[in-house]
């Protein structure tokens, strides 16, 4: 890509701001969906769709495109907002989220939404499908790369570790997993004191034979560098462990499991939008 219109970091920050506003408005309008998980993933998704992925929004089914799987499918509204901002469909369509006959389903549906490469929603399944795409690219002699975003709670599923084993066994250096490490799941362990969804994922994935990169998942520089670094790795899959904040950008929801799938009321919407619209510095 040497398109002069490639967005720089300040533009990416603005896009992320718009995406968060889209997300909060769509959830409020739908009176449904998840809140915390979509917001923690925004910078990662914006960096993927506006800088990293080799894609063509006009031809969502282009065979040689890079693939992306949102394995933590309950965060679908974040993916839809990014796809809309990227031009796959009108931003207004986000307001049909969760409504009857809508292409914006509660969980990603590859047969409904342009730009969605794999259906998901039952946690733990996306990484396996990603392996299939990466192996497919190898068999077909294609150079496209496959990216899969997983959650930290989701990483409790055994299937994630079955996939982790197979991906490194097949030395899939065309596969990148991204862990949205926001440290909060739906309810989790709250007694006698809160516990992390998963401890030391860096050690666990390294032990399974993965190349591990740890970054701040809200820092565009760090995210883009991690994607570049992943391309240099040969003979193993890479996981980017992105430290994030659940509910990022909406102060009263940040880090709170209670906001996993809560719908903001009118007052909370106003507060959230005021915070998101305000420019820092």
């Amino acid at each position, binding site marked *: 890509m040497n398109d002069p219109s490639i967005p720089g970091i300040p533009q990416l920050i603005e896009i992320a701001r718009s995406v968060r506003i889209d997300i909060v408005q769509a959830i409020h309008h739908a009176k449904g969906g998840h809140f915390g998980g979509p917001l923690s993933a925004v910078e990662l998704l914006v960096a993927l769709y506006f800088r990293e992925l080799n894609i063509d929004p006009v031809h969502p089914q282009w065979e040689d495109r890079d693939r992306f799987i949102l394995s933590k499918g309950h965060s679908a509204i974040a993916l839809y907002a990014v796809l809309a901002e990227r031009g796959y469909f009108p931003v207004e369509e986000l307001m049909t989220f969760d409504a*009857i006959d809508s292409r914006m389903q509660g969980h990603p549906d590859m047969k409904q939404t342009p730009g969605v490469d794999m259906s998901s929603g039952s946690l733990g399944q996306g990484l396996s499908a990603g392996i299939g795409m990466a192996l497919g690219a190898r068999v077909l002699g294609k150079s496209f790369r496959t990216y899969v975003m997983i959650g930290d709670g989701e990483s409790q599923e055994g299937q994630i570790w079955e996939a982790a084993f197979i991906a490194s066994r097949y030395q899939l250096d065309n596969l990148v997993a991204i862990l949205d490490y926001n440290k909060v799941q739906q309810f989790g362990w709250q007694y006698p004191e809160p516990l992390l969804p998963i401890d030391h994922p860096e050690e666990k994935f390294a032990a399974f034979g993965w190349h591990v990169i740890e970054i701040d998942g809200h820092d565009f520089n760090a995210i883009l560098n991690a994607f570049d670094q992943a391309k240099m790795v040969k003979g193993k899959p890479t996981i980017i462990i992105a430290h994030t904040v659940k509910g990022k950008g909406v102060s009263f929801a940040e880090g709170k499991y209670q906001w996993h799938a809560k719908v903001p009321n009118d007052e909370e919407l106003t507060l959230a939008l005021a915070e998101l619209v305000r420019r820092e510095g």
Partner: protein
Amino acid sequence: MAQELSQRVVFGETLVELASQDSRVVCLDGDLATSTRTDMLFKAHPDRFFMMGIAEQNMFGVAAGMASVGLIPFVSTFACFTAKRALDQIRIVIAQPGLNVKFIGAYSGILTGKTGKTHQSVEDLTVFRAMPNVVSIAPIDGVEVRQAMHAMVEYDGPVYLRLTRDPMPVIMGDSYQFQIGKAVTLREGKDITLIGTGEQTQRCLDAANLLAADGISAFVLHVPTLKPLDVEAIVNAAAATGLVVTAEDHSILGGLGGAVAEVLGEEYPVPMKRIGLRDTFGESASNAPLLEKYGLTARHVAAAAKTLLEKRST
């Protein structure tokens, strides 16, 4: 207005009640405590609540081990995951040895809070009805949920309990006595028989009212236990009118409609229609448009009844 209760809230309250009465009762949860309302047990008896992570297959295996040493585990997650994600575990270490595990299918059917086809459960009754040794129960309301849970604890063996999410009217009176394997006549009638299971029986009662307005007298049978099936009650209900409509928030393939068709086909053939999902997955939406689009409203049940009546008279 009639009193309304959410099955999931009654489930949480009854779990606390059962755990307080019986020290063998424990609960395993797949990170859905605030949805399925097992958080009530977590608050009341934190030592009897086990958060097993988002890892359903392991969770059911753990429950089997607990049952084998004498506990009575209630395993709780959404119906879609109970009936599919952990199915081999349920089959091998729970159903085949007949271990005393109670497994919950929360948020069953298509009314799952807009989560869509991945989270809707339209084939769980088929799955568990086909699995030897498993008792399957789908209550009509909160009163029946509570009674069914008490019966489940008294019964020694694997039981599947299918629950719903949203508040619905209470139908059963204080004198009602749930019994595993017993269907209940909710309304006598002579023109057409409506047979429902779970919350969908409520829409059969509403359909009976619609039909009554047109001078049609409907017999309504509620079948809370899909297995063992009350064959006698079903045959008697069919014989009462000679026409049968079944209704369920579930696929028509292999659930209540399938079960009734099998029974009547062998024992007492009568014309019938099945209301339910017609070999399709669902989608995201709020309850009213879903019931409308997938043909589950009382109006749909009444229309099926009328079609059968018209056919008979021609």
